[in-house]
């Protein structure tokens, strides 16, 4: 036997150990040592809850919190010990739970190889030992807990600081993911944010590639929707050891995303309750920061968009100013197309304009702006880059049309596409009234024109090639589509996006208005011109009418005296004998008066052509009338041949004027043949370029017209005769023209001449009844 049992000593030792600044495990060992020494026990053990197997007697002690004493006087009976516990069954042993009313922290086991009893003071002492042991264990737990909490708090604090350190969205999200991952000691993580516009839960940040696993998306969606954090183990059959934590990010009671972590880097690789809590706390803390950053980001984007918009509007405004300053249609078009290839927000390589021609139901190429080759393109861009002036300053300098050397412009101007070709991209744009992008045409999608031989649009290099795309926008004017602008980026191959096209569309509409204005102005100019011409014509006609009236008045004034002079001269002549000298004198007076009267007649018939009345005329009747008028002039020896068709159509015209016309021609014919020869007068229906007409011919076999003077014959006051004013043929020409007819001269100098008058038929042909004249 060694030292005697000393309770005080043990108590002191226990106290000493308990308060030593040593790790808990050392302290516990030392305490057990002391107890063992004091009791001279064979074994003295401490069972922690993890080491207590379920189903054994130890467990019963642990859970019932009742001490088991097996000593001299009692026998271990009751529970069947587990195999591992077999050697704990000793002649004397005790199992004391380290517990209070609510919980146990372990079991103190002490055993002896011989039977003995536990005295009351020993029991007390052992009980004391359990208290102290428990206290140490508890204290240790507490300390651990405290450490953990402190570290968590500081980690969260760190996170909080990090989160407020930046508003840059992507940096923030990266920071969050990494910081929390390191807090949780997770190997991988996924941060998802919900896209407000599309509702998609998009991966914004990742650690590792756990997001490739489809379970991640499903899980995240569920967490987002239920707004409940989730912790799962062994949920993926493919990776049975995978452990996951997922928490929703909630701001203003709305889910904005999820934060998910995988694969804890620990043994066992499972996330525990503390990790879970940490994640939840972190998620709460950062949600509002994320929301702020999101808002900030979006605001920034919006601001950028606004800025772009503002620039575009500025371009439009400048265009407007420039377009409205010019009324010259060509200049307007050139400015518009130039801005499309150089302007801020546009800058396409080439721009081509086609306008609709309503009458032809076709699309006509009007103008194109763009380099003809890659070399020319880079030349232009380089010079633009060097020239610091903005495009806006250049507008006033833009000439009215592209240079003559522009091959592109020449090709486009020759282009002509029927609007029925509705597989043509340009035509489709017109018909649908919508912009179209045609990116990378290939296979059957190519513009049909590239396959049609001879179509000039197919000649525009690159427009239909398979390497670059092109786009078309309709040009609207006054509510309907008046044309189309086609653009492409053949030289720098920049793709054309929907947003680019939106702006171009706006631009095209502005241009459309200006173009419409330009056309209107041009029309206005034309109309103005027409009005001026009509006005001039009216003034001329009024003059002629005045002249005619004047002529009438003058003729009347002159005629009456002439009648008196001539009339009395004739009386004198008749009353004088042949040998009287006065006879000759009076004859002279008669002749001269007759001459004057003829001049008056000629003038009257020429100037009085203004006041006509158009009716349906029977040509046969008129011709017969004219012939009868000239019968006095005919001399024996002259043969007159009439060839009138039976089905002569009626003609719309003035009876008297037509009569005068034929009379003049027949008179001329008489003068030409004098007293021998033949005069033919023919009339027959005729078809002039498909329209129904009538032809009247007056032919003679006299001397014909000197070819030198042929082009003078219809001029007023041109005559080869002495006693003629030269108005005969001029009158004929005037009347024929006013009857919308034509006159031709078939001249054979020395052999005769044939005048052919063609007049449009103005009524139904009717079989000429035999009218007795």
């Amino acid at each position, binding site marked *: 036997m060694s030292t005697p049992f000393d309770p005080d000593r043990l108590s002191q030792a226990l106290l000493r150990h308990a308060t030593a600044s040593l790790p808990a495990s050392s302290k516990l060992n030392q305490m057990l040592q002391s107890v063992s020494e004091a009791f001279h026990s064979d074994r003295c053990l401490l069972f922690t809850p993890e080491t207590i197997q379920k189903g054994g007697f130890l467990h019963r002690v642990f859970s019932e919190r009742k001490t088991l004493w097996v000593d001299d006087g009692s026998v271990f009976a009751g529970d069947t010990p587990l195999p591992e516990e077999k050697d704990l069954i000793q002649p004397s042993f005790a199992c004391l739970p380290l517990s209070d009313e609510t919980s146990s922290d372990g079991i103190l086991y002490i055993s002896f190889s011989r039977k003995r009893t536990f005295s009351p003071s020993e029991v007390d002492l052992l009980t004391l030992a359990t208290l102290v042991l428990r206290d140490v264990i508890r204290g240790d737990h507490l300390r651990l807990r405290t450490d953990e909490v402190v570290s968590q708090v500081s980690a969260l604090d760190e996170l909080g600081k990090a989160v407020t350190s930046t508003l840059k969205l992507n940096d923030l999200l990266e920071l969050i993911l990494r910081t929390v991952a390191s807090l949780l000691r997770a190997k991988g993580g996924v941060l998802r944010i919900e896209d407000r516009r599309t509702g998609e839960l998009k991966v914004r940040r990742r650690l590792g590639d756990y997001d490739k696993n489809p379970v991640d998306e499903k899980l995240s969606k569920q967490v987002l929707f239920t707004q409940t954090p989730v912790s799962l183990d062994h949920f993926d059959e493919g990776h049975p050891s995978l452990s996951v934590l997922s928490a929703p990010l909630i701001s203003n009671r709305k889910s904005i995303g999820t934060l998910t972590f995988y694969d804890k880097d620990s043994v066992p690789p499972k996330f525990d309750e503390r990790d879970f809590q940490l994640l939840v706390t972190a998620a709460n803390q950062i949600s509002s920061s994320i929301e702020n950053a999101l808002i900030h980001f979006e605001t920034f984007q919006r601001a950028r968009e606004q800025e772009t918009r503002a620039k575009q509007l500025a371009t439009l405004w400048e265009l407007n100013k420039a377009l409205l300053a010019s009324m010259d249609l060509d200049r307007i078009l050139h400015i518009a197309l130039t801005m499309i290839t150089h302007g801020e927000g546009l800058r396409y390589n080439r721009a081509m304009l086609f306008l609709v021609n309503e009458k032809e139901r076709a699309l006509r190429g009007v103008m194109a702006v763009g380099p003809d080759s890659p070399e020319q393109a880079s030349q232009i861009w380089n010079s633009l880059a060097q020239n610091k002036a903005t495009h806006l300053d250049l507008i006033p300098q833009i000439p009215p049309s592209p240079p003559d050397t522009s091959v592109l412009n020449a090709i486009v101007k020759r282009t002509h596409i029927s609007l029925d070709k509705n597989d043509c991209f340009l035509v489709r744009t017109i018909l649908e009234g919508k912009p179209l992008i045609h990116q990378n045409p290939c296979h059957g999608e190519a513009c049909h024109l590239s396959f049609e031989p001879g179509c000039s649009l197919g000649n525009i290099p690159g427009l239909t090639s398979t390497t670059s795309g092109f786009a078309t926008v309709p040009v609207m004017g006054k509510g309907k589509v008046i044309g189309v602008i086609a653009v492409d980026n053949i030289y720098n191959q920049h793709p054309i996006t929907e947003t680019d096209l939106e702006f171009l569309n706006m631009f095209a509409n502005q241009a459309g208005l200006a173009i419409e204005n330009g056309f209107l102005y041009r029309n206005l100019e034309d109309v103005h011109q027409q009005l001026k011409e009509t006005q001039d014509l009216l003034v001329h006609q009024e003059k002629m009418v005045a002249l005619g009236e004047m002529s*009438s008045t003058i003729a009347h004034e002159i005629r*009456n005296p002439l*009648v*008196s002079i001539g*009339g009395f001269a*004739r009386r004198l002549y008749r009353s004088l004998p042949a040998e009287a000298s006065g006879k000759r004198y009076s004859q002279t007076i008669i002749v001269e008066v007759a001459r004057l*009267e003829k001049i008056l007649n000629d003038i009257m018939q020429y100037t009085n052509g203004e006041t006509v009345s158009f009716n349906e005329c029977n040509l046969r009747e008129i011709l017969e009338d004219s012939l009868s008028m000239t019968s006095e002039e005919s001399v024996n020896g002259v043969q007159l041949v009439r060839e009138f068709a039976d089905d002569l159509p009626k003609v719309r015209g003035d009876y008297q004027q037509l009569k005068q016309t034929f009379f003049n021609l027949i008179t001329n014919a008489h003068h030409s043949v004098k007293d021998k020869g033949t005069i033919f007068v023919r009339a027959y229906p005729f078809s002039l370029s498909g329209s129904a007409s009538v032809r009247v011919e007056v032919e003679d076999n006299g001397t014909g017209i000197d070819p030198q003077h042929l082009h003078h014959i219809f001029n007023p006051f041109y005559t080869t005769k002495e006693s003629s004013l030269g108005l005969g043929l001029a009158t004929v020409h005037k009347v024929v023209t006013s009857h919308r007819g034509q006159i031709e001269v078939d001249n054979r100098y020395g052999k005769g001449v044939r005048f052919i008058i063609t007049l449009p038929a103005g009524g139904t042909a009717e079989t000429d009844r035999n009218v007795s004249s």
Partner: protein
Amino acid sequence: MKKILVVDDEENIRFLYKEELEEEGFAVELAKNGEEALEKLPSVHPDLITLDIKMPGMGGIEVLKRIREKDKQLPIILCSAYSDYKQDFSTWASDAYVVKCADLTELKSTIRRLLGL
């Protein structure tokens, strides 16, 4: 003997016509304007009238109308310095339209024709 009423504002024309037509064997009465012609009509009872168109006051056409209102049968010849294209609107009312000429042959033959001589 047939009687002809000559209406013309020119004195010399009246003179000439009177000389010429009396030589042809007609009795000739003269009037120097439309009003005088209408006044003389009931008393003279001409077989034919020659009317100048352009006269001061009542023009020849007007006189023609007035006469025709009373007498649709009386032959009337319009004499005018205007060329014959104006025939179209006067034709229906007058019996003939003669352009004044120093050579009165046409006038005379027209008178004879209308009087059935």
